[in-house]
């Protein structure tokens, strides 16, 4: 069976969920073959095996641990030339798209960005213009390169025993041109990661102040959810930029999204309107957010939100 290359995304030795999603997609069109940059931990190997990796290419070079884009693109070129894969799948992260863009030019291959699905015949599905259109497309030239959005597919276990192949790749001088001179990890929040959370509770300008954001946090904690914010809020410095939802923030697609004091601008909706259920609280009955809300409360969030939090606690006890 021909190989479908999957670029592994991993942090601190752990394989990301999106990589398992790519493996599930890859198995539709051939044998998933993972390209893993850096040391393969036992935990990483077993996750890859569980989700159907028939082969794991390990590219281990010191430079790879630094600025990873070009080393990754160069490794994918070397492996593609050897194995002429059916397709190359990459997670649609900032880094993944940068790798994909470089790779497309290097291989002279067409690239589809931000696919939400890939069929066995390699037809891709994209959701575009703030999720108002569904586009189907194919790569017509070269080895199809497809970057896939996180959380678009449910990973399905398909245990295998992967063959391990060590590959030596010559890294170019250009690949070493950028250097990370400093890296300060953020404090880890005790709440779930925004992009993967099943519940997201967000606040907008209507929250009124940074202090009032504790009301949003309390509701999020009552539901075991993550905290989101509109750009108005992050611009005002009421909440961290890393919590921004929308076009220039994160895209979320939880089971439940609660928008508090958020008007529902197109750029905000672009990041959340594929949420399963949307609840909105807003004083303005004509706020556009109500057009996409399954349940809306027209009212002052300073009253409604604490009452909701309290009622959840009461119902649980």
């Amino acid at each position, binding site marked *: 069976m021909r190989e479908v290359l999957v670029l592994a995304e991993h942090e601190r030795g752990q394989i990301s969920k999106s990589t398992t999603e790519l493996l599930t997609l890859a198995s539709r069109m051939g044998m998933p073959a993972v390209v893993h940059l850096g040391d393969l931990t036992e935990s990483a190997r077993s996750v890859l095996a569980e989700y159907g990796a028939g082969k794991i290419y390990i590219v281990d070079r010191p430079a790879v641990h630094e600025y990873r*884009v070009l080393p990754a*693109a160069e490794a994918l070129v070397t492996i593609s030339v050897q194995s002429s894969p059916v397709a190359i799948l990459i997670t649609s992260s900032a880094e993944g*798209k*940068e790798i*994909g*863009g*470089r790779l*497309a*030019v290097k291989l*002279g291959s*067409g*690239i*589809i960005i*931000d696919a939400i699905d890939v069929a066995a015949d390699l*037809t891709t599905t994209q959701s*575009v213009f703030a999720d*108002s*259109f*569904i*586009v*189907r*497309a194919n*790569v*017509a030239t070269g080895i199809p390169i497809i970057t896939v959005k996180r959380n678009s597919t449910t990973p399905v276990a398909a245990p295998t025993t992967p063959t391990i192949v060590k590959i030596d790749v010559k890294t170019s001088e*250009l690949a070493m*041109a*950028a250097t*990370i*001179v*400093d*890296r300060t*990890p*953020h404090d880890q929040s005790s709440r779930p990661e925004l992009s993967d959370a099943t519940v997201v509770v967000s606040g907008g300008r209507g929250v009124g102040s940074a202090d009032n954001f504790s009301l949003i946090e309390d509701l999020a904690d009552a*539901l075991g959810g993550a905290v989101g914010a509109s750009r108005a809020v992050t611009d005002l410095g009421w909440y961290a*930029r*890393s919590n921004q939802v929308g*076009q*220039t923030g994160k895209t979320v697609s939880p089971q*439940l999204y609660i928008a508090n004091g958020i008007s529902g601008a*197109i750029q905000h909706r672009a990041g959340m309107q594929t949420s399963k*259920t949307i*609840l909105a609280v807003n004083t303005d009955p004509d706020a556009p957010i*109500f*057009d*996409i*809300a*399954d*349940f*809306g*409360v*027209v*009212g002052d969030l300073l*009253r*409604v939100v*604490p*009452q*909701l939090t309290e*009622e*959840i606690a009461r*119902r649980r006890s």
Partner: protein
Amino acid sequence: MRIAVLVKYVPDAAGDRHFTPIFTTERDAVQGLLCELDEYAIEQALQLVETAGEGQVTVLTMGPDNAAPALSRALSMGADDAVHIVDDCLAGSDALATSLVLAAALARIDADLILTGMASTDAGLSVIPAMVAERLSLPLLSFASALRVEGKYVTIRRDDDEATETITTTLPAVVSVTDRTGEARYPSFKGILAAKKKHIERLSLAGLGIDPAQVGLLGAMTVMSSVSRTPSRAAGVKVLDEGSGGIQAAAYLAANGFI
């Protein structure tokens, strides 16, 4: 210091954006404008020149005739000159073709620094900066939330999910900037008047030595086969809070299995 800024003319996101029957973006139905995220790149270019006390900022776009006002806006913000690549054969270009054309135009300029936005506000693929860098064999520092140039070096700060990083490389280089770099200035009245005297160079594919078969729908390496509107979300129940809004919301959540 010579700085080139890539800017895109995009349909207004607040309009009803859609596709033509041949799957290109419908550009006539919706008002077009200079991509708001590219204004941040222009602002950074202007600030770098102001700080250095010397330099030239050239803005480049590939787009139809009516993209010219986007360049005028960039010139009225303070850019020195502009390049407009316009050719009927370009309609329907995919990312690879777009990057081919932009790289060819950039190669004529010999800039020390090439700035781009973090993403366009229409397709928003965030892939052109990497493709342009690859074609020009340059390093790319992406998603800068701050940048500075010192001698031969450009250094950025990048804030991602995991960490805040400081990344540096030597010039020439490509840098894509985010909306965290700081508000872009409004064109002043003086700026608008000055812009009228600034030069917009128009370039065709022939002028760039690019074969039309490599670009547009003809040269596309990706082919769209269908487009359909996503069924719009139906608005649900709306209640007015008369003292028990939170309790009603909780009842809704409980009924739907969230509590």
